[in-house]
């Protein structure tokens, strides 16, 4: 089904000088989509050309619209020789294909060249007219929304979570084609960038089709990855969770009109779910607004009654139930519905009952079994037929089956927090998958409705239910020590719990959480082919065992009993394997208090030796005590009673189910528990063990005022301020000493991570008290003897004393002011923009009911004059008039290097981004503290290559990468701003492949980033806007940071 893509090239600025003689440029633009190309006129002799072109119109299939990017090339006209390319802009038009996302792309976008980086900016306007009703998009998958966020997006409600979707596409890597030998690096890089854009588009479309087949309208927790398999090809694969989402209207009166969105027709089952984790994540006490949100859910109670009358009737449930109903409904209403619709059998029918989500609507998650993971070592071979990527599919299928069987063994029927990853070195590839075995709400379903109610109401308040074991106590799949739940005292819980998901919002915890990392390095002999694969798969179990031991010991050392967000990454290099496990430790109130760690020596006869051991014991005990204090872990005293465990050795603790398989399909399972030994006891029998214990104790403590976690929520901290700082840090470490022992390598690797953390704490010291959230390290072995660690995280500051807020506010404020000096953007722009967006209560409903209408556009223009851009602010600041203000103003216009007035008038409907740069916040989390996301504009998925042949001149490897990362940020921000957004959430840098050849003065880097473009408004403004729509415009945001 066709659509019309329209593009207009407005202007350029800051172009590079292309003609040395005149120090100017004769620029023109080629606009290409598919095979059609348009050109603008040449704008001679200017670095700030004003093309102001006509609308270029492309009439295309919507399939192409999904697959292809719009390609804009800026060139320098040359009469005598070939035109020189200045750079390119790829625009992903996918966000324009969905009625609920962006409607226009308009703004200054950086012109990017793979050799020179950003070379000026271009102002473009892009629109899409689709000639058909949204509901008939089924042939392609336009209109399916994609979210990187791994929870139900903030302004949506999950009507239904359908389940796992996956797809992969393969192609030859242009870098390895024969033609690459004769073309320039630029041509090769561009071919690669374009191919990956195309493949991502195709992948997204195919996944969209699957979603539509399942009856969904969105993919949440969309995770797309590249496998650069070198000679054997390029794989782009993605997984996600198909959902049916429904936009939440903030106003109960107009809540979800039946006509407002196409997905309503697909709804076969009752509503379940809530605003998702939104409630507990956002700071402060519930606002009036949130209360409204709650009441808007209540109608679904009547709905659930309908469905309970007959389960078979589900598919016929009329949509009208949504809008009607009183406001008296209890929260239990939607949850009951949820329980019913998610039957166990339904889950079992699914090929893979996997969910890439890491946090869930309250009540969805019933019990957690523990981490399940599977790895497999494969030998890569050339992909012969790109259209049938069967081998790769089969590999993943194998692994998923394995995960599924582990899940069953844990007595669970679903996997949550599921993710997949690869590590490639030469022709060896390790495929990994991990998740958390869980029982979803279907268990309620099997019980009688009455009992369900009873249990539900009684158990949710303690927030301990998810800790209760899902498996049969008498048939435990692995040795475990069970006790009665410390909260409800009715059900049994394990002594430790490892999971890959975020801490459920309803969970009862004691104290605060903290980042726990286990790091490991193992040498390996150089080998080829099958032998290499074999060697690796033999090493893997030991690696995992030790990582697990480290995690467990470090957990105990902090006096905690559960891990969330566990991510184990194993990287393979030619001569070593790296393992890095990160997780957020927390003390779950429901679980028993962890015991200490005991050190025992093997030769107790020697007195000095014993003294040494007792010293060490004392150190460990001190550390535990200190950690308990730091993390405020002081659980109520509980008499521990070990209940009869059927296992002869009761003190066993391992939740980690793992296995690895080699190409031969051989699957071995290893019991990761510590055999017959007590896990609390660290036996010192050789120097290695001593080293281990030292390593355990040398983790430097986080400096005062800092907390860290690798999850979305920091357990124990809620009162965030609005100051946030997202950052990416990359380090590459060279091991010059070839003959390192395992222990030595471990130390090097561990120091590398510790030093990186230390640097981060130092850099961000101005934000204290603050927490580094989503601190996920990515390790790689780019070359022999090189270790690369990359991290993208966000530092968020918080108010130390929530309870003392009133008394201490003044003190805190003054302290904060200093921090904010660096990070605050006291821009009125955002305030104005956002309040205008909400100033009329109608604004939002309009968006809902007329998807195509850009609701508050009129309001924008009224603010056009007041739009204060940075540049003007600066000028005003430096403004003391010597000779009369009138004169000054006129000279200001003249002196301005940019035709400001003009560009503003062109963009009058988006005045807030004005002629200068709008602030775009970025965060790896799914939320922005103190703010409410009011609109998702679409997924950002960008892939860039940068190459240089003058590495030294660009400041060496660090200078090169520093510039490149800054450029990537700039391009992400510009594209988000062009979509009309002011933030990126769930941002991640999924790939950062860095290669260097200092001898040739060359380096190359590939970066892949993704995230969700959103519009947010400050919570204070939302309230103000709803109370006094008129005065809202004068509000200034006083706590903005990025």
């Amino acid at each position: 089904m066709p659509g019309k893509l329209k593009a207009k090239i407005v202007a350029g600025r800051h172009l590079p000088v292309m003609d040395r003689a005149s120090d100017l440029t004769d620029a023109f633009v080629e606009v290409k989509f598919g095979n059609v190309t348009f050109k603008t006129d040449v704008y001679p002799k200017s670095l700030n050309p004003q093309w102001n072109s006509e609308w270029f119109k492309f009439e295309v299939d919507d399939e192409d619209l999904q697959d292809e990017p719009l390609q804009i090339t800026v060139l320098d006209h040359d009469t005598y020789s070939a035109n020189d390319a200045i750079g390119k802009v790829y625009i992903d038009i996918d966000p324009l294909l969905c009625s609920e996302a962006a409607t226009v792309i308009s703004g200054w976008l950086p012109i990017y060249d793979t050799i020179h980086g950003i070379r000026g900016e271009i102002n473009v306007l892009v629109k899409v007219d689709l000639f058909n009703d949204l509901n008939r998009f089924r042939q392609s998958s336009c209109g399916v929304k994609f979210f990187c966020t791994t929870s139900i997006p903030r302004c949506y409600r999950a009507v239904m979570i359908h389940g796992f979707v996956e797809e992969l596409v393969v192609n030859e890597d242009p870098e390895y084609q024969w033609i690459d030998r004769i073309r320039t690096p630029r041509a090769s890089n561009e071919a690669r960038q374009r191919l990956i854009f195309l493949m991502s588009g195709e992948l997204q479309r195919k996944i969209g089709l699957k979603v539509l087949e399942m009856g969904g309208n969105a993919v949440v927790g969309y995770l797309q990855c590249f496998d650069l398999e070198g000679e054997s090809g390029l794989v782009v694969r993605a997984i996600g969770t198909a959902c049916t989402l429904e936009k939440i209207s903030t106003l109960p009166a107009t809540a979800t009109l039946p006509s407002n969105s196409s997905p309503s027709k697909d709804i076969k089952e009752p509503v379940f779910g809530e605003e998702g984790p939104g409630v507990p994540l956002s700071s402060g006490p519930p606002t009036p607004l949130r209360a409204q949100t709650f009441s808007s859910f209540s109608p679904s109670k009547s709905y659930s009654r309908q469905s309970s009358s007959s389960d078979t009737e589900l598919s016929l449930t009329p949509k009208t139930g949504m809008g009607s109903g009183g406001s008296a409904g209890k929260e239990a209403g939607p949850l009951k519905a949820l329980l019913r619709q998610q039957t166990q059998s339904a889950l079992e029918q699914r090929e893979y009952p996997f969910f890439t989500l890491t946090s869930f609507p309250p009540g969805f998650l019933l019990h957690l079994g523990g981490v399940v993971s599977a790895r497999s070592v494969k030998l890569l071979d050339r992909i012969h037929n790109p259209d049938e990527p069967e081998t790769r599919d089969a590999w993943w299928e194998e692994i998923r089956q394995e995960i599924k069987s582990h899940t069953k063994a844990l007595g669970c029927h679903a996997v949550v927090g599921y993710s997949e990853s690869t590590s490639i070195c030469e022709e060896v590839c390790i495929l990994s998958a991990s998740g958390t075995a869980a029982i979803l709400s279907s268990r309620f379903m099997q019980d009688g409705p009455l009992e369900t109610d009873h249990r539900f109401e009684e158990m949710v308040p303690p927030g301990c239910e998810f800790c209760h074991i899902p498996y049969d106590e008498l048939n435990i799949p692995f040795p475990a020590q069970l006790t009665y739940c410390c909260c409800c005292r009715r059900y049994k819980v394990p002594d430790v719990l490892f999971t890959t998901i975020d801490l459920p919002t309803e969970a009862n915890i004691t104290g605060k959480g903290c980042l726990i990392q286990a790091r490991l390095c193992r040498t390996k002999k150089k080998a080829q082919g099958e032998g290499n694969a074999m060697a690796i798969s033999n090493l893997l179990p030991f690696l995992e065992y030790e990582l697990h031991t480290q995690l467990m010991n470090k957990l105990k050392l902090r006096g905690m009993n559960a891990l969330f967000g566990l991510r184990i990454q194993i990287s393979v290099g030619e001569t070593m394997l790296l393992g890095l496990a990160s997780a957020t430790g927390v003390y779950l109130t429901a679980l028993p208090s962890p015991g200490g760690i005991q050190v025992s020596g093997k030769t107790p006869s020697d007195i000095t030796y014993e003294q040494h051991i007792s010293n060490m014991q004392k150190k460990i005990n001190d550390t535990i005590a200190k950690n308990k204090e730091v993390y405020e872990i002081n659980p109520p005293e509980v008499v521990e009673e070990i209940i009869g465990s059927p296992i002869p050795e009761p003190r066993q603790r391992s939740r980690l189910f793992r296995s690895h398989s080699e190409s031969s399909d051989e699957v071995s399972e290893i019991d990761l528990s510590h055999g017959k030994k007590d896990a609390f006891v660290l036996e010192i029998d050789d120097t290695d063990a001593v080293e281990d214990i030292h390593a355990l104790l040398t983790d430097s403590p986080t400096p005062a005022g800092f907390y860290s976690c690798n999850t979305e929520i920091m357990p124990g901290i809620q009162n965030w301020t609005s100051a946030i700082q997202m950052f990416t840090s990359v380090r590459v470490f060279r091991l010059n000493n070839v003959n390192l022992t395992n222990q030595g390598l471990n130390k090097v690797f561990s120091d590398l991570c510790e030093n990186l953390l230390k640097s981060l704490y130092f850099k961000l010291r101005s934000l204290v008290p603050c927490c580094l959230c989503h601190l996920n390290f990515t390790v790689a072995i780019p070359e022999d003897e090189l270790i690369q660690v990359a991290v993208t995280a966000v530092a968020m500051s918080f108010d130390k004393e929530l309870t003392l807020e009133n008394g201490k506010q003044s003190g805190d404020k003054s302290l904060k002011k200093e921090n904010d000096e660096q990070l605050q953007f006291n821009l009125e722009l955002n305030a104005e923009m956002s309040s205008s967006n909400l100033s009329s209560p109608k604004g939002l409903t309009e968006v809902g009911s007329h998807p195509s209408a850009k609701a508050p556009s009129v309001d924008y223009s009224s603010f056009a004059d007041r739009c204060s851009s940075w540049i003007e602010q600066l000028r005003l600041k430096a403004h003391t008039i010597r000779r009369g203000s009138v004169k000054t103003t006129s000279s200001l216009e003249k002196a301005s290097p940019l035709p400001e007035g003009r560009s503003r008038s062109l963009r009058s409907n988006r005045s807030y981004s004005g002629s200068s740069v709008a602030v775009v916040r970025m965060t790896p989390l799914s939320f922005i503290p103190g703010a409410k996301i009011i609109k998702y504009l679409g997924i950002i998925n960008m892939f860039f290559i940068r190459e240089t042949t003058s590495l030294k001149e660009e400041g060496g490897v660090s200078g090169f990468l520093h510039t490149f990362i800054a450029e990537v940020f700039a391009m992400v921000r510009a594209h988000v701003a062009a979509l009309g957004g002011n933030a990126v959430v769930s941002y991640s840098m999924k790939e950062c492949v860095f290669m260097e050849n200092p001898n040739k003065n060359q380096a190359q880097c590939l970066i892949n980033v993704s995230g969700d473009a959103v519009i947010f408004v400050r919570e204070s403004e939302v309230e103000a806007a709803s109370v006094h729509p008129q005065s809202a415009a004068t509000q200034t945001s006083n706590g903005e940071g990025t």
Partner: protein
Amino acid sequence: MSVELDVFVGNTTIMDKEVYQLWLNGYTVNDAVTLRIEGGVMEECEVLLSDTMDQYRTFQMCERLLHHPAKLANQLLFQIPPDRQAMLIERYYAFDDLFVREVLGKKLSKGTKKDLDDVSSKTGVMLKSCRRQFDNFKRVFKVVEELKGPLVENIRQHFLLPDQLARDYAAIVFFANNRFETGKKKLLYLTFQDFAFCAGQLINNWTLGAVDNMMEDMDVDLDKEFLQDLKDLKILITDKDLLDQHKSLVCTALRGKTNVLNEMEANFKNLSRGLVNIAAKLINAKDVRDFFIDLVEKFIEPCRSDKWTSVDVNLYLTHYTNSAHILDTFKHHSVWTRYMGVIKSCILKMYHE
């Protein structure tokens, strides 16, 4: 074993004021780290080294934007809050008074730049910093050279500088353009601020811009017509009667108000000749250059040797200026006012007791 690559990039560009200052001052990364350790920010050398290198890189990348401060506000590469931008610009364009004193009035040419190492060793300002400051002067000079309109305003608009700094730059540009001599031994006691004040006086009163504000180069060059008119003042010293009359008027007015009346009386003719001769010679570019040295030699030094106080000088100049208007045969009142107004304030500024 070594860190091969180490970068940290924030969505909001993190910049440490202290490190920025070290960078501006021309310290190498290692020296900066040493200084920071001494400053007590942190003990761990490794962490500081990594941080300092990151910051230095950031500053280097920002530097080309700082050359055109207006670009800093609408570039996309770095997300920098407005107050930070202002700080970056202000500090980048800040200069050492000691340094500027050395190059003030010199031609901003390659030759001068080559001599910067001497200036550096003389002033103790690092060569790197000297170069930056010199290049700033030159850049500002080049830009405003081609612009119409008031000098200070142009500098403020183009380089987004705070008012005081813009005025200082105006002074530097003005001095460089007119090549005023400031390096003679007799002038060494004067600070940059003394000269900057005088430059402000000259710009505001003696340039074309002072009368017509849309002329090219209006603030950079002195008003030729005015300089021509100054010749007419010569009558004050060439006409014997007028000179005597002037003297008696001034002395009468000063009677009882100062302790150095006798010296004033004795020196009157000399001083008056000195000031009027300066005025008459200003039409020659060569003599314009010697304006300050002339003021010192012809007026300030004689007064100082007679131990006049600033109050004395002020009194004397006030009455000297005003009395001329009472002279019957003296017709050039407006030129006299325009001339003496500047001379008086310059001398007062330059008169260090």
